[in-house]
């Protein structure tokens, strides 16, 4: 279980009801996962019938939480107390691996 980082974050440009006093730059967090490593026989069987592949849904959810967590750790290290404008991006790396990236702007709010 990951330790909690208590930094609020949102994908809007401002934090409602607060003013941004300082910008701490872009913070990123990423993780590269290959689906084949976590390949589940159940998912391969489910693929025949179509529909949701729950194993992969959960895997990607976990990975994205990990990326978010790393982003928040980065923000905390810079002394920010909020992250705004969080975006997600996914890019494929060679060999069936995918990179899950979360990035945002670390700010100090009051």
């Amino acid at each position, binding site marked *: 279980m990951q330790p909690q980082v208590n930094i609020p974050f949102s994908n809007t440009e401002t934090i*409602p*009801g607060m003013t941004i006093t300082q910008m701490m730059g872009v913070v990123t967090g990423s993780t590269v996962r290959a689906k084949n490593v976590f*390949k589940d026989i159940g998912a391969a069987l489910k693929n025949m019938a*179509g*529909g*949701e*592949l729950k194993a992969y849904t959960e895997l*990607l959810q976990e990975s994205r939480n990990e990326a978010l967590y790393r982003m928040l750790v980065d923000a905390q290290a810079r002394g920010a107390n909020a992250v705004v404008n969080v975006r*997600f991006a996914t890019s494929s790396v060679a060999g069936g691996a995918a990179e899950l990236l979360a990035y945002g702007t670390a700010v100090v709010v009051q």
Partner: protein
Amino acid sequence: MGQPSSSNEVIRLVVLYVVLSLLIPLLPWLVSGIGTAVYQPKKKKELLQREQAFAKSSDVLSTLRKPLSGKEVKEYRLLMTNVVMSPSWIQILVGGILSLFGGEINVFTKVVDWSRREAQQRLREQAAASGYDEVINVRMETTTLSKIRGGKDKTTGIEVLAYGTGIKY
């Protein structure tokens, strides 16, 4: 007495062998057919019912950057949901044939549309479960989980990610 029964048995074994050798390669396609014709419509129907339960009030999701009503926001959090959907083997086969002719590949349109609706519906449910009044600045993203070329792994799918800022008044 022994002669006809043993030749009968041989014939039976040969028939069984032929039937099985035909059936076993066809079995995944059979499963795929059932999945396409029965399982997927059932799931879509369930999704429609879930959507209709939420359709009574106005939609909580919006892509606006700020809430329309100028009320004071007390609490906010980033909400995100995702779903991985895959077309069935039959749909992939039909899609492959249709893509020779170009134009709209209807079988894939349906799968993508379904997964996007599912992701949005989950976002609505998540917002309702944690008591958020509205979800603003909703963004959606699609990623393909493609099979590795030349590999034995046939599993394909698309991932739809929906995220937005949940706000409480």
